């Protein structure tokens, strides 16, 4: 098995800082005194450009023009996001299980069975979102604007999880971000569903949110254990 805490506790060969290149750093700073900026102004130029483009442009996407009651569109937008996020979440846990298989377990960390359980619950939530979209007359194959935004927001999470060079601990750090968003997003969906007055649907969504809350607690616990391991490993190095 590979070492869990190697990335953050082993003295290595990191070249990014300027401290080992102090002479070069000083040369570079001296250069800025001789060669001044060639355009005037400050960072507000970028802000002005953003504002101009934002005012002139259209939205990044819209809902479809299918014959669905307009009042249901905000819920369908959010349900579409949960469907996509939970499907991706299932794949994230698949990747996390591969991390566990490559790096092994650590004291206080997740077992394979625990990760599999969460993985199956994420899939269950995706299927629930799919079912609720159908019940509201929506199209579960449509990528909604909210789904697209959340996919863009969480793009880096999967990059960390599928990179062979990151450990199980690194993967848990990444999945925390997903669980934080997921938990809050189910809560927001519950509020939107309540406004529609469908008690059955609201109850199912609230149940999913409670399960997500449990995921978040478990991940936080595993990360606390990971920090203890890292601290111990660093002490051993010294």
């Amino acid at each position: 098995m590979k070492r869990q805490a190697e990335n953050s506790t082993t003295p290595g060969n990191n070249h990014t800082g300027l401290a080992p290149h102090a002479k070069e750093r000083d040369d570079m700073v001296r250069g800025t005194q001789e060669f001044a900026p060639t355009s005037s102004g400050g960072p507000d130029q970028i802000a002005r450009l953003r504002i101009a483009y934002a005012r002139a442009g259209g939205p990044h996407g819209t809902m479809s023009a299918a014959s669905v009651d307009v009042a249901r569109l905000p819920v369908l937008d959010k349900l579409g996001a949960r469907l996509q996020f939970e499907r991706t979440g299932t794949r994230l846990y698949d990747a996390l299980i591969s991390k566990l298989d490559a790096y092994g377990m650590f004291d206080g960390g997740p077992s394979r069975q625990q990760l599999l359980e969460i993985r199956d619950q994420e899939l269950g939530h995706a299927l629930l979102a799919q079912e609720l979209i159908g019940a509201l007359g929506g199209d579960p194959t449509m990528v909604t604007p909210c789904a697209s935004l959340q996919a863009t927001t969480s793009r880096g999470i999967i990059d960390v999880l599928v990179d062979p060079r990151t450990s199980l601990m690194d993967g848990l750090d990444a999945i925390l971000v997903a669980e934080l968003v997921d938990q809050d997003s189910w809560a927001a969906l519950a509020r939107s569903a309540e406004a529609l007055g469908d008690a059955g649907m609201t109850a199912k969504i609230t149940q999913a949110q409670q399960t997500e809350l449990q995921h978040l607690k478990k991940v936080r616990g595993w990360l606390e254990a990971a920090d203890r391991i890292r601290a111990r490993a660093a002490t051993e190095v010294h």
Partner: protein
Amino acid sequence: MGLDLLRDRGTSIERQRFHWKELVGEPISKLDADALTRVRIILMNGIESEANRFGHAAARLFPALQRPLAVIRRIEQHQQTLVNWLLPADQTPLETTIGYEQVAIEVTASVASAEPDPYMAAIFRFGLLEDFDHMYRFAALMDRTEGKDASALLQGYTDILPGRPTAVEHRHPLDDLRSPYDRRRADLLSKLHALTIMAGENQTHDYYMTIGPMFADPTARLLYAEIASVEEQHVTQYESLIDPRESALEKWLLHEACEAYNYWSCLEFEGDRRIRAIWERMLDYELGHVQAVARLFEDHERRDAEQVLDRVIREPIRYVSHRDFVRDVLRAEVNLGADGSDLIDRTRDHEPERTRRYRAELNAEIQPSNIVAAGWTWQPGGELAARDTGTRPDFNGVKPDQGAKS
């Protein structure tokens, strides 16, 4: 030790094989690898990319060459994969861009200082100052949109300073064409230099054209559009240095020689043992290509390949910091422009009307590279590390500006 392209033993083409696992090996570490290892990887991707581009163009024009081109081109496509897949996934497109500009600066500076032809050396220095400015603009973009310091990638080898302002680099296409070397008289090194820098600029253009639309920020989209346009100018410039009277086979032979020359240069300077082994293997493969194409050349053209590859190469591209050289060029030549194939002093001579009109039209509404770096000076850790950011101005209801003035 030099490089004897026709006599140093390489790997015969029949023995040049790959499998997927070695094509997709372990990438370098963005944090731990030496910046110049990244520079070499990026340049060699560009060199192989040019081999592929040339090979396809030649196959479309010269049916007699199609079969040997197909065989060697496939090997080179796999070489390119092996090399380019050494870049890690956590290196973002903007970070890779910083690497591309470091290639353009350090490799062009090395070539410019070793170039035996004074006109060609002047052209390399001319292009160098423009890529030098691109580094500054992209570093400003990185700092001002992502809060990151580009020096983490450059590792002290390369300055982040304004060069010839990108805003004035835009020239009419006819003012980007230069005079070619004479294929019968030019030094072999000049030919290899021109091919190397042309290949680097062409891949940079293609890379910016691919990743530019992947950015969300309008400033980034504008800056990539603007600098990709200048890279197109640079490809025009450097390819026009190459004698168009060279035959297709002569050009192919020089392309293979250029690849071997570049892998040899990488090998001369590489400190990472694993990467060294890759450069060594690729050099052996390229020597096999050079010698196979030399035989084709001799069969088809009934002349000796030594007429083209006429000497041992003893001047590798030097993978070191060229800070002092670049600053000297910056002090002396930042004000140069072009009138046709001649370089002129913009402070003394008028640039052609066609260039002035072309530039004024492009810069009329928004000047992206001025906006991104307005008043920006590099400092360790980025501009937020050393100053009070204060409160942001409230632009609500303010009409946006058209862009900063040069």
